[in-house]
């Protein structure tokens, strides 16, 4: 599913339980990160759960390749959404992606709260940082 499809799907669901069920399904579909890639450098600070994130550029097309994992189902699902936003975009496009607004539209805004329990905000910041460094 691309981000448009995810958005449509989530918007069509009413109630948090249904939304989280869908988010966890998205998470299940995200491939697990092989253990050797779960390095401390890849660990995103500011999440209570563990989140590992790698960002790179696809050699041929110079588009972003993101892989990520989490030890919680929900955060993994949120990662799937974030990855769908950024994967295969050009670094220049990525800089203009306003994940905050996207989450707001999907009614997931509270996942951007500064609470430390979940770290969507921290993840998005990490992505933006690394995108800047990739350029």
């Amino acid at each position, binding site marked *: 599913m691309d981000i448009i499809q995810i958005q449509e799907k989530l918007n069509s669901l009413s109630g*948090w339980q249904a939304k*989280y*069920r869908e988010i966890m399904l998205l998470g299940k579909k995200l491939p697990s990160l092989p253990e050797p890639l779960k390095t401390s450098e890849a660990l995103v600070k500011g999440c*209570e759960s563990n989140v590992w994130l790698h960002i790179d550029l696809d050699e041929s097309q110079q588009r972003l390749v993101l892989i990520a994992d989490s*030890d919680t189902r929900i955060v993994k699902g949120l990662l799937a959404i974030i990855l769908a936003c950024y994967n295969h975009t050009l670094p220049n496009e990525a800089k203009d992606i306003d994940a905050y607004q996207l989450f707001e539209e999907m009614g997931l805004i509270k996942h951007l709260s500064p609470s430390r*329990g979940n770290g969507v905000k921290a993840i998005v910041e990490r992505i933006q940082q690394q995108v800047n460094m990739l350029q």
Partner: protein
Amino acid sequence: MIEQLRKDFPLLHQLVDEQPLCYFDSAATTQKPQSVIDAVSHFYQLENANVHRGAHTLSADATTKYEAVRDKLAQYLNVQRNEIVWTKGATDSLNLIAHGLSEKLAQDDVIALSPFEHHANIVPWQQAAARTGAKIVVLPASKDGVLDHTASIELIHELKPTILSICHASNALGNIHDVKSLIEASKAYSTITVVDGAQSFMHLKPDLTQLGCDFFVFSAHKALGPTGLGGLFGRFELLNSLPVYQTGGEMIDTVSFSGTTFRQAPEKFEPGTPNISGVLGFGAALDYLNNIERNALIEHEHTLYQYLVSNLQKIAGIKMWGDTTHNIGVVSFTYKDEHHFDIATLLNTYGVAVRSGHHCTQPLMAHLDIPGTIRVSLAFYNNQQDIDTFISALIETIEMLEE
């Protein structure tokens, strides 16, 4: 009775995400009765003035009321008023004590802690140990999270600690510790005993003269009171012998650029403008606690807790940690290998507010060998309906995870 008391807590009647709230996070901070909220507003609307310095009526009245709460608190804990120091919270209190007691520590002296301690009762001692060369020793506990009391007493006899600092009740698991007997054992070695009462202050109304500890710390916000306030009790002689901690106005006797002299305890440890509205609000909280019929309250909390535990026991895969017999009303559990964050987040969609994670007790989680738990912490204002809602939400949550 409880339904009557619940009416005093406006927040409990809120809808959160359009659902009735089941508040199970009282170990993090309790809700406040209207009388506490009113006392704070009333102060700002009619009585606001700085304390201790003013010739004018507002200031004198504010001072009288402010100091009257010190009396009230001393009475609640059964100690003397000059043994009470106001602080920012339990963390501030523990820092003050650990700083002050550093002077009494030498190389290789033992500071004994339990594995149940909140970071606030660990890190300040680590700092003191680093400054002095003292070492931290941890009392023994079972794999499931229960203090081994007999072995702890033996260890005290063996190590003769200079300081013993231990929580009266564990915030992560709710276990109540028999601190009285640990203190008694330590007294043989003139051990200085510190009790972290953050979790016991409201639930157990400890009689400190009976406990026999040298220091006791608490936070107002965990006992129906406002945020930004806490306090400590210190046995006067010992308290007064500690070096000053923070310095500034109010705590001094005379100041000149060539030298400064300080007042006696408690003023010695109370520089600066205090949290006046916090103290007055806490006064109302103490009134509230004093006016509840305590036996009925304990009975209610006990029944509620039993009901919670027995319902959880029926759910296969639930593991409850700690001592569910001597407990202030906390259940800390895990479900199979599911992450605490997922369970807590899903429970929240049912209006059930629990806490998840390490609860500022990482060493305890390491001891239990788990990343964290889901913590359900009760207060007297919870009712059976809350627990029924929680249990059915939990069952649905588990179903969703097992899909």
